[in-house]
């Protein structure tokens, strides 16, 4: 047997033998030696070509060409540093933005939750008309757990603040009370110690606690002997029985450090209508969400009948737990990913047209290579190689850009918010983002390679030689380049419109009527449960002392306290009814705030009728209430609410409150939610251990914060003070504001880049066309065309492109905005002002981009233009 692959030498040998045999034969036929040799060679044809073809056939040539093409492509890139750097930079930005946003999408939406079989974990709760997810009451939970057949286990959790006694004083800490099999339901096992024993969650069970990994690390120095030690929470000793694993995080509980079994209930918590706990459940295998939901709804209905709960609306809700954890950020992330995708598209188009323009100026080179025998396929390989190289470098840069962006964006998320988004920890360059980047790179290189190939296949190579760089040559590129630039401009319009709408939403959001003056307002969270003030009188005395001392600080105008600061959430909800009116358990849910006499004036809330509270409204006087306009409108339409009464269940006691004042709506809930009805009670009549202090200052509120904290500690060293911040910081830090700001800034950034790229693209097209038409313009001018008509000629061409891009873009942007309307606030998808603004902006930018080449065209010297060719 011979070798599998013949060597070229062997082949050459055979050809040589052939020529000799042929010559012998010819000689025999009577030719002379020389004649025979010559004829043999002639008969054979092109010997070199035969060698070449044999060589090509032995695929080694493929690799050979690749290396050649690579070398040539690198030389080309180095030769045109301007082109190469621009193209690589633009690609890097586009790919980087895409990969970075994908990093977040991957971590938040694609990575499963860090629990066993997370897709079987459901959030199981009540649902109401106002909110699709409404907490459970403990008795209802017990019945749901007992009656349901859909879940292998059903558990509840509820956050709670504790005061932890430490050597350096009392410290407010975040704890979570959970039912016994909570961790089993999640499929999480303590990494140290044990889970709760079955009996430990029954009422009267022992005080035991499982630590978070962070608490174990920071408070117990990660020592194994932490198990069995005790911690003092709210002046009760809890025995540490376990430590949760490091990777454990349960987003709804944020940074809870102390996990205690639910075995100790307040008076309210035993009530069937006190909704305070959130439920999770693990579905039985084979049970669908729909089945489970239907069953839970039936159970809720049955319980309602059984216990005569007459409120009409409450039902059950079963949704995947992942929905609860990432539901809020999904539309934002998808919008951002869309935006980044558009940016990448524009980047590709931009680089594509650069490549195209350059391949146009390389026509002669291509034609020469073609004439010298380069096959079309060979020329195409060359372009593919160059495309690959550009895309490769671009992607490499993109990955670096993505790394930076991801780190930067990660830092932008405030710590409080990040705690509820544990998936942020998984953001970064990893296998997923790497794969994504690779796919992006592949697509980009295909696109970049396809553009010149497409153009190449439309053209006779020979033309390139015939007419050099002139005339018809430009037409094709002009048409192609022009179409591409229209795409670019349209995409830029879509991004600009999106950014405009999001920006306007943000503006609207930050300028919703608050009903109070957030400037020069300092706030702090105070917890008095560690102090000596045991009875009610002492507490009220402490309140008075705090307000008196803080108010007297230099630079402070007034100070007041509230159970909860405005613009936080519609939580701390009260269910009220009205004495004298029939009550059938309607869910008249209103925000409930306990405030000191000075609080509402300190906020500069506007009193509409009646009066604010005074110090005379105390525990010995009849209960009074101030209501907001929304409550007055909803429940006392066309009536004067002053003197009317509202009733509720205050601290488990049925109570009646007389309305003494109506205040203009203070926005208690989040910025993007309609103001709820709200009621204010004098804090002196209800007394709270936790409250917030609001301090109106004459100058910058931030500078006074340390002074306020100091003063509070002077009043009582056992007062715990936390979360000191100005009101404006508080508002800016709310999730709503942050999410809107995030999306507005990011999409704004994308849009700015897109605008620049689009306008540069337009400039490129017009400038190139002016270059190509120099001769034509020269002829026109020689024949008497005015400068103004040359301007018109060029600008008209640009105007058509800009108008086409604008028109397509505006139509598309209405479509995309409708898709993302979830993110809009107080602005319609077809907001005329925004779209008009985008049109004007793009129009102006396009005008500038086309004016420059037009001026160059108008200043063409006809004589030189004609001579130049």
């Amino acid at each position, binding site marked *: 047997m011979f070798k599998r692959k013949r060597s070229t030498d062997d082949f050459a040998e055979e050809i040589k033998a*052939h020529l000799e045999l042929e010559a012998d034969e010819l000689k025999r036929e009577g030719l002379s030696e020389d004649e025979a040799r010559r004829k043999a060679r002639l008969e054979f*044809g092109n010997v070199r070509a035969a060698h070449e073809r*044999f060589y090509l056939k032995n695929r080694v040539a493929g690799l050979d060409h690749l290396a050649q093409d690579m070398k040539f492509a690198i030389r080309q890139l180095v030769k045109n540093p301007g082109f190469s750097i621009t193209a690589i930079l633009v690609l890097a930005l586009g790919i980087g933005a895409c990969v970075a946003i994908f990093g977040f999408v991957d971590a938040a939406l694609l990575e499963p939750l860090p629990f066993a079989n997370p897709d079987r974990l459901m959030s199981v709760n009540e649902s109401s008309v106002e909110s699709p997810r409404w907490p459970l009451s403990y008795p209802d939970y017990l019945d749901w757990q007992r009656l349901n057949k859909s879940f292998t286990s059903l558990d509840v959790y509820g956050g709670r603040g504790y005061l932890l006694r430490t050597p350096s004083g009392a410290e407010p800490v975040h704890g979570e009370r959970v039912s016994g099999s909570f961790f089993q339901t999640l499929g999480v096992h303590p990494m140290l110690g044990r889970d709760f024993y079955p009996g430990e969650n029954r009422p009267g069970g022992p005080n035991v606690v499982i630590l978070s990994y962070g608490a174990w690390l920071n408070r117990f120095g990660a020592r194994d002997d932490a198990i069995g030690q005790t911690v003092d929470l709210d002046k009760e000793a809890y025995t540490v029985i376990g430590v949760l694993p490091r990777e454990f995080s349960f987003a709804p509980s944020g940074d809870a450090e102390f996990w205690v079994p639910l075995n100790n209930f307040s008076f309210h918590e035993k009530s069937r209508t006190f909704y305070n706990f959130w439920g999770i459940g693990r579905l039985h295998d084979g049970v669908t969400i729909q089945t489970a939901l239907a069953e839970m709804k039936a159970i809720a209905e049955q319980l309602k009948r059984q216990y005569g709960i007459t409120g009409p609306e409450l039902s059950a809700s079963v949704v995947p737990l992942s929905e609860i954890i990432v539901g809020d950020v999904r539309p934002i992330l998808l919008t951002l990913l869309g935006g980044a995708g558009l940016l990448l598209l524009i980047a590709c188009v931009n680089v594509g047209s650069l490549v195209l323009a350059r391949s146009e100026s390389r026509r002669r080179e291509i034609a020469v290579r073609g004439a010298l025998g380069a096959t079309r396929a060979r020329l195409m390989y060359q372009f593919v190689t160059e495309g690959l190289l550009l895309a490769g470098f671009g992607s490499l840069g993109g990955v670096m850009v993505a790394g930076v962006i991801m780190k930067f964006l990660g830092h932008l998320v405030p710590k409080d918010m990040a705690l509820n988004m544990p998936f942020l920890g998984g953001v970064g360059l990893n296998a997923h983002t790497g794969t994504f980047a690779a796919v992006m790179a592949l697509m980009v290189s295909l696109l970049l390679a396809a553009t010149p190939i497409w153009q190449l296949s439309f053209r006779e190579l020979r033309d390139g030689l015939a007419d050099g760089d002139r005339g018809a040559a430009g037409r094709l590129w002009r048409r192609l380049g022009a179409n591409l630039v229209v795409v670019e401009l349209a995409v830029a319009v879509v991004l600009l419109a999106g950014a405009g709408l999001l920006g306007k939403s943000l503006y609207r959001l930050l300028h919703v009527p608050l009903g109070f003056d957030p400037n020069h307002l300092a706030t702090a969270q105070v917890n008095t449960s560690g102090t000596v003030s045991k009875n009610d009188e002492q507490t009220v005395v402490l309140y008075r002392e705090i307000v008196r001392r803080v108010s007297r600080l230099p630079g402070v105008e007034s100070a007041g306290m509230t159970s909860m600061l405005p613009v936080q959430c519609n939580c701390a909800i009260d269910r009220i009814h009205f004495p004298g009116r029939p009550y059938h358990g309607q869910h008249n849910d209103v925000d409930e705030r306990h405030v000191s006499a000075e609080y509402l004036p300190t906020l500069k809330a506007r009193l509409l009728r009646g009066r604010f509270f005074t110090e005379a409204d105390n525990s010995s006087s009849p209960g009074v209430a101030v209501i907001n306009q929304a409550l007055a409108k909803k429940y006392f339409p066309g009536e004067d609410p002053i003197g009317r009464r509202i009733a509720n269940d205050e601290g488990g006691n049925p109570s009646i409150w007389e309305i003494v004042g109506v205040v203009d709506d203070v926005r208690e809930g989040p910025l993007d939610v309609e103001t709820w009805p709200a009621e204010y009670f004098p804090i002196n009549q209800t007394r709270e251990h936790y409250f917030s202090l609001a301090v109106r200052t004459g100058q910058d509120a931030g500078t006074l914060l340390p002074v306020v904290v100091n003063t509070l500690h002077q009043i009582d060293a056992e007062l715990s003070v936390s979360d000191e911040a100005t009101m404006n910081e508080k508002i800016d830090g709310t999730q709503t504001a942050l999410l809107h700001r995030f999306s507005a800034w990011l999409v704004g950034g994308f849009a700015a880049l897109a605008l620049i790229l689009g306008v540069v693209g337009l400039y490129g097209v017009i400038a190139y066309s002016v270059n190509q038409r120099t001769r034509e313009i020269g002829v026109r001018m020689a024949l008497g065309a005015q400068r103004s008509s040359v301007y018109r000629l060029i600008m008209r061409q640009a105007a058509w492109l800009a108008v086409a891009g604008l028109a397509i873009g505006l139509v598309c942007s209405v479509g995309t905005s409708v898709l993302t309307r979830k993110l809009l606030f107080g602005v319609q998808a077809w907001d005329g002002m925004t779209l008009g603004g985008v049109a004007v902006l793009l129009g102006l930018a396009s005008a500038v981009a086309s004016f420059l080449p037009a001026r160059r065209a108008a200043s063409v010297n006809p004589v030189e233009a004609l001579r130049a060719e």
Partner: protein
Amino acid sequence: MATQKSVDDRIALLQGTLDLLILKTLVLGPCHGQGVARLIQRRSEEVFFVDHGSLYLALQRLEEKKWISAKWGVSENNRKARFYSLTAKGREQLVEKTSEWARLTKAMGLILSNQVDPSVEEA
């Protein structure tokens, strides 16, 4: 090849027919490339012209398909030459291709002889 255009009565070989001709030539016994080229030309009464570059590529191709095998040897006039011979597989192929060819020419003949006047089609 363009260089051979001047010889008018020669016909360029149809794609694929060269393989068949080579196989047929080798039925007579082992032969080197030059001999194959000569034989084809001679036996077609000089109608076919074999492009030698194509011939050697075809030989290579057939060798890779194991239809023919090759061995360096010595020619009748004492020249070193690479001799090709038909394999069993090549023999099978020859039978198959020959009948295929017969069917093709028969069909072509049927169509071409039915065409009364080629110029009518153009109108």
